[in-house]
């Protein structure tokens, strides 16, 4: 704590603003390679939420709330849930049942990988569902961290 309210020192702020986009890129990498490597929507979403938590630690909750309002994070989360449900219902209409993997076997997205290969465009609808769940977890956990940080600041005064 210094004269800037709940901001930390200039060193921490600089390092945090450098690390924030890198953490988001790593989160996006983990989400998009969820069907090939360890990881997936939940893990990548947790990494993205921890990037937002890093910003909150360095810059303070009030500043971060001015930059990204929690309504926007909530909209982001709801968008993820909507994508999940829409892809599931498309499985009902285009193939057999709800949540059918209707893209597998298609030439563009559903390549079935041979032994020892790992093409990015395999998996059918799994990358889309991974992305949806990743959006959901980033939005949800980041908004929870933001709300709790603001609420604990409000209780102090």
């Amino acid at each position, binding site marked *: 704590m210094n004269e800037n309210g709940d901001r930390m020192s200039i060193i921490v702020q600089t390092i945090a603003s450098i690390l924030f986009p890198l953490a988001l890129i790593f989160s996006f990498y983990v989400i998009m390679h969820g*069907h090939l*490597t360890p990881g997936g929507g939940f893990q990548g979403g947790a990494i993205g939420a921890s990037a937002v938590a890093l910003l909150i630690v360095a810059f303070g909750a009030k500043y971060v709330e001015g930059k990204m309002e929690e309504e926007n994070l909530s909209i982001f989360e709801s968008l993820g849930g909507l994508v999940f449900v829409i892809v599931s219902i498309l499985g009902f209409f285009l193939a057999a049942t709800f949540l059918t993997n209707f893209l597998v076997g298609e030439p563009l997205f559903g390549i079935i990988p041979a032994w020892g290969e790992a093409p990015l465009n395999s998996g059918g609808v*799994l990358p889309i569902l991974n992305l949806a*769940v990743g959006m959901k977890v980033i939005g949800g956990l980041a908004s929870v961290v933001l709300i*709790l940080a603001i609420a604990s600041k409000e209780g102090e005064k």
Partner: protein
Amino acid sequence: MKKATAIAFIIFSLFLFFSAYEMRSFGNPPSEMDDRIIGKYNSTANKWEYGAVNETGANNAVTSVVFDYRGYDTLGEATVLFTAIAGVMMLFRREKK
């Protein structure tokens, strides 16, 4: 009241302990378990016969279980996440300035 709770706790712990003691040995699950998801290699045709790689096209078997075989589970889990976060937002609702 406290004594009854203590007795119930001790009985519960003993039950847990004996069921862990009678458990099958660690590290040896039944070999046919989950064979359908992991799959089997057909060496004459030089490809996988069944399993997650053929049925969902994903190399990561855990992801194919989470999003394909047990997709309803993930949908319900997303609903729980949404509900809990809506509860947190409702608890710390603030007046608009």
